[in-house]
């Protein structure tokens, strides 16, 4: 399958934090074929394993988080309206008048309500409604809706994808399922005997809701020798500076910071240059803001690199990425799982 199609198919699955298991069968059919086994752990991390076939080979962990931001139902009101609570850092500016799907016993289409200028009160000023103040319009009666939906039912953006000019694409859920697609693609390109070790692809749960991500218990139970964490990275837009972003179209980013492994970073950057894989570095003084920090400190510690796919409009229903960057990430994954002495310090 070509990368764009895989990105869109994975991203279209509803996987609002806590509900990563929603598209389990679809996920299996989309990517399962290239792996030897797959399993789910207690917190919803989904693992796909591709073995190299050698005894005592190292364990390599590739992490991309499966969950996405979204909403859950907090109450069912009269005339088929729902109130919701936000899950993760939903961009409030983008919700009103958007299309959503309520994943109850049946999939139900809904519209996020908005107030037209004709009926707006002057005292509302330029304030923005909180997610909890919004109403989702389903067009059902309360009775019928209550049969299909309960408090806690997840609500996701309706998946709609567009191919923009050149190699740019837009849609929901690219954070972080586009990276999952790149990881699958990268791993699939390396023949079993070429693998540097047994590869554990972890599509981790619960990244978007803050301090308690699934990556920590996942990495703890697998206890890999080293790891690559892949997540989307904030792409440069006209209203941001270069130092706080990465260039869209600039290739896969590698984060240089105290969390990530210096040896692996240096080797990867050099090797990528040799293989003409486009990379850029992203430097930060603190944490990576991704699962890398959790993976790095799991158990007795796991050396890791943090790879980013530049993304604009993060946490909206219309995130924009460049397929060429995605290709670079996939190539970097292939390089990572096929290079044998990555963690060895050379003179």
């Amino acid at each position, binding site marked *: 399958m070509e990368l764009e199609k895989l990105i869109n198919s994975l991203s279209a699955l509803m996987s609002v934090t806590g509900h990563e298991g929603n598209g389990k069968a679809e996920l299996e059919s989309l990517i399962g074929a290239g792996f030897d086994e797959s399993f789910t752990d207690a917190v919803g991390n989904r693992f796909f394993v591709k073995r190299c076939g050698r005894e005592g080979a190292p364990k390599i962990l590739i992490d991309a988080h499966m969950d996405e931001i979204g909403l859950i139902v907090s109450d069912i009101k009269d005339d088929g309206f729902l109130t919701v609570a936000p899950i993760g850092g939903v961009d409030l500016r983008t919700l009103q*008048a958007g299309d959503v799907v309520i994943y109850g016993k049946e999939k139900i289409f809904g519209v996020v309500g908005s107030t037209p200028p004709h009926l707006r009160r002057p005292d509302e000023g330029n304030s923005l409604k909180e997610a909890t103040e919004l109403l989702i319009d389903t067009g059902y009666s309360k009775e*019928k809706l209550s049969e299909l939906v309960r408090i806690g039912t997840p609500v996701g953006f*309706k998946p709609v994808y*567009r191919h*923009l000019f050149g190699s740019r694409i837009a849609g929901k859920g690219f954070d972080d399922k586009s990276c999952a697609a790149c990881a699958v693609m990268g791993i699939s390109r390396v023949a079993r005997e070429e693998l540097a070790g047994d590869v554990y692809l972890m599509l981790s749960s619960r990244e978007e809701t803050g301090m308690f991500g699934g990556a920590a218990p996942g990495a703890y139970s697998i206890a890999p020798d080293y790891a690559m964490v892949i997540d989307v990275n904030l792409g440069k837009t006209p209203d*941001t500076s270069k130092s706080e972003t990465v260039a869209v179209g600039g290739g896969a980013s590698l984060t240089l910071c105290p969390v990530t492994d210096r040896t692996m970073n240096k080797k990867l950057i050099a090797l990528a240059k040799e293989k003409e894989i486009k990379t850029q570095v992203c430097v930060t003084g603190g944490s990576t803001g991704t699962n890398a920090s959790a993976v790095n400190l799991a158990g007795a510690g796991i050396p890791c690199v943090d790879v980013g796919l530049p993304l604009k409009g993060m946490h909206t229903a219309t995130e924009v990425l460049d397929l060429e960057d995605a290709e670079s990430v996939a190539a970097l994954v292939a390089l990572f799982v096929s290079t044998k002495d990555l963690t060895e310090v050379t003179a």
Partner: protein
Amino acid sequence: MTREEKLQLLSELCLEFGPTGSERYVAKVIKEKLGDIEYTVDRLGNIIVHIPGEGAPKLMVSAHMDEVGFIINEITDDGYLKFDTLGGIDPRVMCGKYVTVEGKEGFIPGVIAAKAIHHQNADERKKVTPHKSMYIDIGATSREEAESLTEPGNSATFDSEFVIFGEDGAFIKSKAIDDRIGCAVLLDLLGRLPKNCPFDLYFCFTVREEIGLSGARTVAHAIDPDFCIVLESTAVADLPDVPESRRVAKLGDGCAISLRDNATIYDRDFVNFALEAAKKKGVAAQIKKYVSGGNDAGSIHRSVDGVRALAISVPSRYIHSPANVISTADYLSMSELVLAIIENGKEL
């Protein structure tokens, strides 16, 4: 037309491109739909179909073709499109939405974007981002690339799906229901007019309603009608968090007939006549219970020596957004309501 055909027609018209000043795309489709029916197009682009009724009073029935949208006013060095709005659009419904941009050749997809939430401070996150701080991302990476695709002065509309949803498909969601619904009803009515029509009829598809009720003004001047019926959609808020007194009208209770809005005080006899005609024919109708908005009646009723005006609107939630929501039944009843009025026209 069957129910399915009516829904298909509305879908086709709503999804067509036609922001204020760029109605030519939707106008082309309407002209195709008119087929053999004779029509004229005036200097502003209004389409007029005349169905003569000798000696009878002149009745103008109008709907506007334009929709709210955007106009590109600048292309940035890094290939983004800055824009102004065409018509009143709240910035709360723009950010993060798909748009269709009028390109140099055909249409191009884009996204209205702004600084990511991660780069906003706590204060910014609670406030509306004004449209001047947003831009359209079409995927171009440089000014040259963007300029090869489109140019300032070109316009854009929301790119949003037409969806029939809710219990038993009771509701419709789309962009531009305001006012393609009026256009759809006019097209439906053209094939269903009574033989001995008591009016000299003018069906008008007008331009530029969303900014200054402009197109209708010149048409009305040219026609000089005795009566007019404006077919519209009106903003309602029949929502659980809005007090009853501000809900305007209720979806599913039939089309709303206005007593007054911010542009027009409607002819009281005409309003009562319409309500009576609806009752007689068993068509649902409701009175709009709030004063808000304005429509083409505002310019029509003031033209020449004055026109007795009536507005029939399908109640719509969230208008001027990519997701207008109406009741399917209200839409289907609109033609019947207009027919009831025309059929009883002698008593007016």
